[in-house]
């Protein structure tokens, strides 16, 4: 069997897992995880096979399944033939690694995490459904198939966030997630239509080829030839989809609420995979964006704004998962900033590293929550370091990674983003990015400090029952911790920053860059964003130093305030100081605590005003539209009873009526006669 033949199985296996589990999972009870987990394991194997083939060779794989929508045109208008097919190139391959690996680990982790849940089988069915959707998303080779997957991941997210549907907050969060996503999807859908209008094809590669600027891809037309829908508009519409799915400002509000879902879901969907879909899509559509540089700037602005906004909120949140959620927002903001400045490879790099360490952090937080019996408020934790050491150490690794301390993964990717931003003339992006880096390091260690260090604030009743999670949960943690440590190194080797430092040629490319740069070269050249050789002693060194410095500053600040217990080092927590600090900037503190009031704004704008609009519409419908209908009926009826009054029952009245009629008749005949 060729590799091509294997590609469909990447989707088919989880699909089969979903169908089977949904059908008979209930009967399998506690054994119901075997099929879905097995399916994902197999998928992982196949995916790795495919990935290695693709990444080693230089060709991509294209698989056509069936003609999905054969909507023919009439009289010269273009046919709309959508083919359901898969396409694997380097970018997809990279994504496949992230999705299948983390997916598999989360599946395994869930065996332990969900063990006591009544909806055990249901959970695995949903998870498999998500995997199906997500894999279609990365494999799609048609915009419409991509959109299908786009929506399906939304559905899975809805199902999984609302998994504990008896909880009102969960069902509300699920609904909110779906609806906010839909807002972006409207733009995305319109963008797809615009693409067809411009290019008469929905194949991703073909259409991008046509939309791209002349310098971006051979045959690209984007610039000089006016399309019916300008490229910039197309790009904006498409970007709207990304904003929704990746929870960028102003559609970021759903992601923190989505933490109502079970923690493995947060790890898989809301950290490692689904939320990255927007990044993936914009990266995939790089020729299109390259043809509209002003949109690129917009993307960068949105990204970096989201990054600082979310980071500022994460500073003060007390729910452990919410901190992570805002952190995710913030990191996604980095990625978009990166995309916006033209550093596509860096964005994907960060996507990968972030996927692993954020997955790790979420799973770790799940383990914590599990340990303290479904408590998520960090104010009721503390001092857990000893009681759940494995969780502690893995989470610490994750925190270091995300804070950008070398040589862990986060450092490499984040540094690359900031460096590229600066070098490509986006100094403001860099500047804000640096601030975000400080904040990131700070709130991550605040989280670690509040959770693991210091005195225990755990409920007395729960305290004795705290226990480390079973191996089926901790092993995935460790498996994720490994890439969190080494992935940056591996993927950037032998390129910068470490390669030149260790004697590799200055223009050597890292592993990931080798894989991906062919995909982005055209766009980058068109944008004039050539990557100059790495200068360790020059500007690059300075930027690198700055990155590391700010990360350390952030960590130290958190350390100072929230105490540290790192092996022999013992610090103390200073709640009073924290309070004093917050009291000094009351507005900022409240803004952060209240998430800059976005939820309230949304509530007023959409729930309250929307409710008014809908109520008014219903009133209008009842009283005016239907009222006119009923009014016509009533008028008819009333005129009927009015006319019936003529029928008095008295013959003389009737006769008088007849006589009057006779007179009128005679008069009319006179008129008629006069007309002759």
């Amino acid at each position, binding site marked *: 069997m060729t590799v091509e033949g294997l590609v469909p199985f990447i989707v088919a296996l989880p699909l089969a897992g979903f169908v089977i589990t949904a059908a008979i999972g209930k009967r399998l009870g506690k054994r119901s995880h075997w099929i879905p987990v097995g399916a994902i394991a197999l998928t992982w194997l196949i995916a790795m096979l495919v990935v290695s083939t693709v990444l080693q060779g230089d060709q991509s794989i294209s698989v056509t399944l069936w003609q999905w929508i054969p909507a023919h045109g009439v009289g010269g208008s273009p046919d709309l033939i959508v083919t359901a097919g898969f396409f694997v190139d380097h970018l997809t391959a990279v994504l496949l690694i992230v999705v299948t690996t983390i997916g598999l680990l989360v599946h395994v982790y869930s065996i332990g995490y969900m063990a006591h849940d009544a909806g055990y089988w249901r959970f695995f069915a949903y998870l498999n459904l998500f995997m199906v959707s997500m894999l279609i998303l990365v494999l799609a080779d048609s915009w419409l198939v991509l959109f299908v997957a786009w929506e399906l991941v939304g559905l899975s997210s809805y199902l999984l966030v609302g998994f504990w549907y008896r909880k009102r907050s969960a069902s509300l969060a699920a609904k909110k997630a779906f609806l906010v996503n839909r807002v972006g999807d409207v733009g995305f859908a319109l963008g797809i239509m615009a693409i067809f209008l411009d290019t008469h094809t929905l194949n991703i590669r073909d259409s991008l080829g046509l939309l791209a600027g002349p310098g971006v891809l051979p045959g690209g037309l984007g610039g000089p030839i006016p399309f019916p829908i300008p490229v910039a508009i197309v790009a904006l519409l498409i970007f709207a989809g990304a904003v929704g799915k990746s929870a960028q400002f102003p559609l970021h509000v759903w992601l923190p609420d989505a933490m109502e879902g079970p923690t493995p879901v947060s790890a898989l969907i809301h950290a490692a995979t689904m939320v990255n879909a927007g990044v993936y899509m914009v990266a995939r559509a790089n020729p299109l964006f390259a043809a509209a540089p002003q949109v690129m700037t917009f993307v960068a602005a949105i990204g970096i704004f989201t990054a600082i906004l979310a980071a500022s909120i994460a500073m003060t949140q007390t729910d452990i998962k919410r901190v992570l959620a805002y952190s995710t927002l913030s990191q996604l903001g980095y990625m978009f900033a990166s995309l916006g400045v033209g550093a596509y490879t860096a964005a994907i790099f960060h996507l990968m590293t972030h996927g692993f360490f954020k997955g790790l952090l979420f799973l770790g937080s799940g383990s914590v929550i599990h340990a303290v019996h479904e408590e998520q408020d960090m104010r009721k934790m503390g001092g857990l370091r000893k009681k759940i050491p494995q969780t502690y150490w893995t989470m610490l690794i994750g925190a270091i990674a995300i804070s950008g301390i070398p040589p862990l993964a986060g450092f490499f990717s984040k540094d690359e983003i900031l460096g590229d931003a600066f070098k490509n003339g986006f100094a403001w992006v860099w500047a804000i990015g640096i601030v975000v880096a400080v904040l990131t390091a700070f709130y991550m260690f605040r989280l670690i400090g509040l959770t693991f260090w210091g005195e225990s604030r755990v409920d007395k009743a729960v305290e004795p029952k705290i226990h480390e999670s079973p191996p089926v949960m901790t092993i995935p943690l460790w498996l994720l911790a490994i890439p969190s440590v080494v992935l940056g190194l591996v993927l950037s080797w032998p390129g910068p920053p470490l390669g030149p430092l260790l004697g590799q040629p200055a223009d050597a490319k890292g592993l990931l860059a080798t894989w991906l740069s062919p995909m982005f070269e055209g766009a980058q050249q068109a944008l004039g964003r050539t990557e100059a050789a790495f200068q360790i002693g020059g500007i690059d060194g300075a930027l690198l130093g700055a990155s590391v410095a700010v990360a350390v500053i952030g960590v130290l600040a958190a350390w100072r305030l929230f105490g540290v217990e790192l092996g022999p080092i013992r610090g103390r927590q200073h709640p009073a100081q924290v309070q004093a600090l917050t009291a000094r900037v009351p507005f900022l503190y409240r803004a952060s605590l209240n998430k800059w009031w976005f939820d309230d704004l949304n509530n007023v704008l959409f729930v309250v005003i929307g409710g008014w609009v809908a109520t008014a519409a219903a009133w209008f419908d009842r009283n005016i539209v239907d009222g006119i209908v009923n009014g016509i009926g009533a008028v*008819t*009826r009333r*005129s*009927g*009873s009015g*006319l*019936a009054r*003529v*029928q008095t*029952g008295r*013959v003389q*009245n*009737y*006769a008088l*009526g*007849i006589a*009057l*009629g*006779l007179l009128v*008749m*005679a008069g*009319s*005949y*006179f008129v*008629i*006669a*006069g*007309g*002759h």
Partner: protein
Amino acid sequence: MTLDDLRTIAPFALAVVLAMAILLVDLIRPGNRNAVLATALIGLAIVAAATVIVGQTPGTAFGRAYTADALTTFLDLVFIGIVAFTLLFAPDYLEPRGLPLAEFSIVLVFAMTGAMLISAAGDLLVLFIALELMVLPGYLLAGYHKTDGYSTEGAIKYFLLGSFSSAIFLFGLAFVWGMTGTTNIADIASSLGLVASGGAPFQPGLAIGLAFMTTGVAFKIAAVPFHYWTPDAYQGSPTPVTGYLSVGPKVGAFALILRLFVVALYPLREDWMVVVVVLALLTMTLGNLVALTQTNVKRMLAYSSIAHTGYMLVGLAAYAAGREEGLQGLLYYGAAYSAMNLGAFAVIAALQKRAGVTSNLETFAGLGRREPWLGILMTLFLLSLTGIPPTAGFFAKAYVILAAVQAAQAGNAALGVLAVVAVLNAAAAAFYYLRVVVYMFMREPQSEQPALRHGRLMWTGLAAASILTILFGIAPGALLDVVIQAARAIA
């Protein structure tokens, strides 16, 4: 008077003889219902046969006072049918109330002779006397339940206003005679041709004559604003009589219109068309609007019959506007309306077999459960009256509307308005017809009464009426040919 004359008037003469025969039978076997019925029905069959046979060879008799043509044949058959139906379902109503069948049959047959004579009249005097022969028995029949206050009240209202209108009609007739100097219909037409072509002035005397005549005729067909008698007379009359009154004199009066307006006043058709259009508009609209508010089914059907007059007038107007289809539609409508309306009244009569049962809507509550077949048949008739396909009422309505639309497209905008108003009216009419259905099928009966047993004749009549109602809707072809022949005879 020659033998040919006798042959030509044979249907009419036989009908008169039939009336005498029933009288004789009743004298010989007093109170024998079956003998009377048998005589009447067999007699009617013979008259019908004679009509058909004579109808093969059109001709005139008594100078030109009696004209037998395809129209005569068609209308005669309609009248015979109407009377036969009435006789079929009358006994079930009359008997429990102690009313004799013999006089009823005799008077009814006399009325029929009048109607038949109208359809054959070639002379205005004959026309007038025939009209009186048709309506006078109608007055008597309306008051036939002479101990019943409603019946006599209806009768006296009907009689007084009817006589009033007869006098008006006659006055108009006199002036037209004076104007044209002849009583013969064909001669009048040629005389008026001069007026129409501008060869003679349109004299005020003629205008007065036409106005009075139109008024008289409008009264007879119950066109608004000359309709006042209809609701009271219909409601008060014994139900079989109402059934008869709602179709017999109406079709008869339309026959009068055909002979008088369509033939005699043909040259002036563009003039009276205006009047007919206005009358049609008023008639349809008022009939339907007032019917909406009625709670007595007989009275409601009275208003509905006014509305149907309006639809028929649409056909007449279309004919006046130059479309022969209008005339065909009118004739078709007459036949279809007779079948369905008689059917509806037959059901009411059947319900009233138990004396003391009113015709209020409440009577119909739960009928669909108590007596499903009656309910279903009533629904059929009501749907037909509404004009829902595939029933006779639908095709008839479509026919007159077709004619109006044709006239409208030929440039007569008034007919277009008429067509639209007609269909809007039809939609409004659905409300009150369907309300009866609501009562029958969607209401529970107020008191559980045992189902009545209805006579075989009643069922026969109902079956025949329903078959015709459906037949005229599904396969209008057969009737169409006849109608077109009939229309061609005068158009």
